[in-house]
């Protein structure tokens, strides 16, 4: 589960001192007070009930002015911005009434979660929000109580947002290239395809953090390829059950036909084709990503002299053969042929491709 900051186990009172532009935190068992400046103009109209706040990371979109409205299915469901955006009036949104409203609730929600008995906070009578949170924290505030962020992780990751968990990998970040938001001010997110909701790999934050932070190009390739493995296993599972269902009244005469069907579905290449050509709803963006991936695969295969006359840069086979070369023939590859650089390029395109793919609607493959 992503870190949820919506449940406060500390008990203290929060009072907004409008005149002095600050919040006052008061512990129940002490006369002590802590003041936290809140310099933004006030818009506290409406009610805070129904908002949920999450903390994410983004090593690119972490500027004070990186403030985006978040849309799902054409409807604005929330906002995403840095902690710093809540502490400054210098950004473009500091006068926007909608931002000011959401900022007020987000600020308050963040204050509610502060552990004011934390050792580094004890003894302070004035705090900034950034004393209590990592200055690189990104705030996502959503206006739906029932919102389940786990189903949106790929969507956020597409723009470089991920949740920090406790996995022990030092940040790399230089091996990922993220999409730019749809417009200067908006980010559109999409719920993961219902068909994939039961695959935990896609609904647990650690996967996205791991692929982002993994430094080694080979490990990263393997991690990314796991997605393909999972999806083609799913295809096998569904198709196998379907074949069994369709042939439950079969007789001995049907053995040959069933054998062909099972052979076909157990063939990995065949399932990759199904996945990449039929399973996913294809649109122009998908086609572009697939094409870019195949181009990098072909470049890699050419650089290590594995590209044959029968290979076609436009067909999925080149992707599968690339995978086989990296997995089974890596020991034979010579580094002077830019193998490492080419695998890194494949990783960039593969990452973009799979992140887009798992957000796409999946077709009925039965």
């Amino acid at each position: 589960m992503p870190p949820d900051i919506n449940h406060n186990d500390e008990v203290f009172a929060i009072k907004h001192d409008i005149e002095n532009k600050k919040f006052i935190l008061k512990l129940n068992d002490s006369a002590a007070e802590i003041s936290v400046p809140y310099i933004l103009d006030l818009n506290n109209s409406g009610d805070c009930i129904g908002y949920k706040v999450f903390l994410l990371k983004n090593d690119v979109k972490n500027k004070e002015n990186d403030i985006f409205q978040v849309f799902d299915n054409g409807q604005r469901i929330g906002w995403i911005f840095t902690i710093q955006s809540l502490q400054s009036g210098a950004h473009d949104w500091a006068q926007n009434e909608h931002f000011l409203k959401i900022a007020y609730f987000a600020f308050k929600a963040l204050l509610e979660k502060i552990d004011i008995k934390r050792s580094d906070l004890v003894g302070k009578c004035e705090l900034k929000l950034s004393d209590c949170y990592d200055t690189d924290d990104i705030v996502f505030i959503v206006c739906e109580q029932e919102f389940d962020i786990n189903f949106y992780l790929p969507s956020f990751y597409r723009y470089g947002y991920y949740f920090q968990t406790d996995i022990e990998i030092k940040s790399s970040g230089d091996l990922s290239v993220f999409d730019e938001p749809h417009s200067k001010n908006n980010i559109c997110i999409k719920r993961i395809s219902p068909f994939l909701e039961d695959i935990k790999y896609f609904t647990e934050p650690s996967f996205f953090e791991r692929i982002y932070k993994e430094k080694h190009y080979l490990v990263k390739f393997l991690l990314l390829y796991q997605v393909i493995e999972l999806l083609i296993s799913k295809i096998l599972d569904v198709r196998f059950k379907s074949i069994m269902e369709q042939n439950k009244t079969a007789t001995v005469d049907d053995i040959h036909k069933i054998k062909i069907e099972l052979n076909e579905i157990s063939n990995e290449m065949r399932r990759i084709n199904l996945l990449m050509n039929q399973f996913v709803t294809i649109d122009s963006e998908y086609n572009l990503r697939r094409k870019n991936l195949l181009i990098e695969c072909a470049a890699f295969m050419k650089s290590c002299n594995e590209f044959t006359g029968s290979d076609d840069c436009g067909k999925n086979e080149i992707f599968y053969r690339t995978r086989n070369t990296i997995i089974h023939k890596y020991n034979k590859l010579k580094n002077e042929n830019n193998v490492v650089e080419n695998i890194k390029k494949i990783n960039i395109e593969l990452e973009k491709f799979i992140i887009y793919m798992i957000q796409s609607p999946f077709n009925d493959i039965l």
Partner: protein
Amino acid sequence: MDLAILSTIFDKRVNAFNILVEISIQDYLETARKIINKNYFQRKRITTSFTTYSLLKKDLEKGCVIPAIVLAHIPNSQNEAGNADKKITDDALNKIFKSEDLIILDGLQRTYTIMDLDDDLKSKTPEEKNIFLKSKIRLEIYIGMNRLSILYRTLTLNTGQTPMTLRHQIEILYNDFPTTYEKDKISLFKEVDTNRPGRIGEYNFKYILDGFQSYLDQNELPIDRGELLESLKRLDEENQNTFNSVDLFESFLKTYHGFVKKMDAISSGWVCSEELAVRFNKNPFGKDTYEIFSKAQPITGFGAAIGILKDNKFISGLEDISDLVEKISLKKSPEETFSYFLETLDKVKQNAKKIGDEQRKFFRFFFRNLFMKEGDSFLDFEKSIKDAYRAYNI
């Protein structure tokens, strides 16, 4: 009241007597309750670790000895301050102690704990209470310190703690500075003032203080605790007159005001057009030169840059800047120049993790370029902008 003087030492750094006395908790409480809420300098109560807090209370109840609490006598006037020759008698000390002109420099939390325990013991028998109330504690009392010396000693005594907020310390440091300079038509507005600065000559007091602080620190960023201490030392060094910085502050203010007036003159009434503002999301850095240069970012950038130039002997002092300001002229039209200025500031804004801090840095480069004789953008306004952005981006 039974005050026993144990030792008297003269503190040459702050020019005051430090007197060690022994007193009963009961007598200390009587004075402590009076001074804890009345004193302007007094810090607020802070959160403490629950365990430490209750342990100290239990120990005090049993009559434990705690480290000396440090107090300072705030003189009613500067004439009383630093009177190093005056001998402190028992009577004089008793009189001072009974007055409310004391502040707690070190030991506020201990005092709160003592007060809390006194309240907790109300239901106990007099005998039980007396174990606590008749216990002795030691106090160190500084006599004859002025306001800035008190702040200096507070900071040095409380290394590793947060005795009061930084803003509070700065307010104390500059509390006595004047806010009106009639001859130069300058007014400084404090936060409590109902009016806001809105025309040339009117500035936010806090921004000017930040700029002055940046000048002393040679750093445009908001200062931290260690830097404040450094500032106090600098004030001391610059003036050759312990902690008297009003003249230097005034000189800084007038120099900057001279620059703002010059900007107004050479801009020939330039105002950011609606059309131009749209390019900056209708939120340009400033709509005219006064609005641009009355913000904290340019003032602190100016302070830091001038401080650096002076420290590196490129200029001899603020007077040099006043002369140079008069020589600034624009090579292009005001429209072209200031549009370019706003565009550059917007670029800084779009790429900054902390917009305010980054803009301060940009202005430091800008003013450094503009006033450094040895540089190739010396007094060249447009080139100073360009070079500042390049330097900022490196």
